[in-house]
């Protein structure tokens, strides 16, 4: 995991749905046809902000209120990851979305009330190890917790960079043994 990520905040509200908003479910059907996620990830969040998918840069942040990623979520995590989103920063995150973030190692930072301290286009500098968030636009500094912290049983998967990387690491170790 990169230590410091700098990027722009893309601000959203409360109760953002996985299949409803993060990546609208109808685009999931493109994957069934064998289309790789990179080709249609730009549809992410388009119902809420049509610019997001087109303008988001690697290392930018998705900032949201409560219950981010609620409801079913088929490809929301993968879409944000494919777009290079540095982390999701939210007041709270839906359990299913949090579980789904592990295999793709999409960083999730959680802090109640954090959404009130960040607005659209704010420049953020985030220390991924400590969870410290510097809002360079407001000069405020605050802290958030990793959704999957060190000590979580599945942290090794996130730490390795995702499921594929985790399994590969163990396979390599076993080959050397």
């Amino acid at each position, binding site marked *: 995991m990169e230590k410091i990520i700098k990027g722009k905040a893309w601000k959203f509200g409360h109760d953002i749905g996985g299949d409803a908003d993060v990546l609208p479910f109808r685009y999931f059907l493109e994957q069934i046809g064998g289309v790789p996620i990179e080709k249609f990830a730009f549809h992410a969040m388009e119902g809420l902000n049509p610019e997001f998918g087109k303008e988001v840069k690697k290392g930018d942040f998705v900032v949201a209120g409560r219950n981010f990623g609620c409801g079913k979520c088929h490809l929301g995590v993968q879409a944000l990851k494919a777009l290079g989103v540095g982390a999701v920063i939210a007041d709270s995150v839906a359990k299913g979305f949090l579980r789904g973030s592990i295999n793709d190692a999409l960083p999730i930072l959680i802090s109640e009330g954090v959404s009130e301290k960040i607005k659209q286009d704010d420049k953020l500098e985030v220390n991924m190890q400590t969870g410290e968030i510097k809002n360079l636009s407001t000069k405020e500094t605050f802290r958030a917790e990793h959704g999957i912290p060190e000590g979580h049983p*599945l942290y090794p998967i996130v730490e390795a960079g995702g499921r594929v990387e985790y399994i590969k690491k163990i396979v390599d170790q076993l080959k050397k043994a």
Partner: protein
Amino acid sequence: MGRNIYEKILARASGKEDIKHGDIIWFTPDLIGLTDTGWHGHLKFFEQIGLEKVMKPEKIVGAIDHCPEQIAVPEGAENNKIFREWAKKNGVVNFYDIGRGGLLVQVLAERHVRPGMMVLPGDPEVQACGALGAFIASGDTALAMATDRCYIEVPEFVKCKVTGRFQGGVLSTDLKRKLLGDFGEEFGKFIEFVGPTIDKMSIDDRMNLCSLLYMSASLGIIAADQKTIDYVRSRTKEPFEAVRSDPDAIYAATFEYDVSKLEPQVSFPPSPNNVKAIAEAEGIEIHEANIGSCASGRLDDLRIAAQILKGRKVHPRVRMYITPVSQEVYLNAIREGLIAVFIEAGAGVCLPACGTCPGHTGQLAAGEVCIATTTGNNPGRIGSREAKIFLSSPAVVAASAVEGKIVDPRKYF
């Protein structure tokens, strides 16, 4: 504090004594099941992670059961070839090719699963093996094959106590279907079945009960009793532990079902959870009647179908497909004269396979109606979206096949 059977098996497989709802726990599986689906993708993934040989090939049981017909679509000869060659290269000795095994769930039950085991199913069809007192723990199969470890999120455990005597023509499958309706698709809890009715059930009937597909993230288990021990002992000398729940084990909830008044149940389209009692389905004309799948098609199912079909004919409008779930079941059915009954009645008998369940066999034309013991009935599953699929027990299916419409089988008993 007492522990239930699931907790005990997981504790042994994980080395962790403290197990709570919501915990994520790493464990070592005893068996890993594999079917013949998606081998182009699996091979690509193994190349991606650099997996040249699986860690413990002796734990793997593979069966070609979704596409033993090796039809052109969706999977076919190329896919099965990859699976076959991969199994050979990796030293997977427990590989059941066409003509030698049958459905993965059935070969696992007939030859490999023992009470107290932690089993990674590889496909939800294997759930029925919970009837042998094993924990069928859905999880990351590739992770387990590469590292010999896997993880599970601990759900809530519930107890389902079953009492009363089934009426003639009412089966454990009807109880299972009642649960599908009562608990719904989103149930997400692991059930332990107990009670005098469970004690009296045959192994086949217990397996049918534990086949809980379409109750997502749910499982059934029946602690091994003398019947289970005798069944397993007749097939293997390998040691096992007939794990049972402590008398003071804790469950999130207890449900009680008295089956003495249970009527045959039918799942109406568009979902297996759209369950109604037989009276609401009676009279619906049918074109196809199917017995088979991981949920049914065991020897007891074939016996009850033969009881109804003996000396009778399949209705002129109806085509009937009967699929024994394994070669062993098929052979036993031949020896008992059941296959002759089916053929004399005018039913087709098929190679053990998923077959009519996913519609690899017996597709439906627009406007046709099917009644089946299989697991899914969403529109378009077995052919035309304008066809209707009803799901029920082998007794209902056999009786309906004779009369050309859905009927209550109890009159035949």
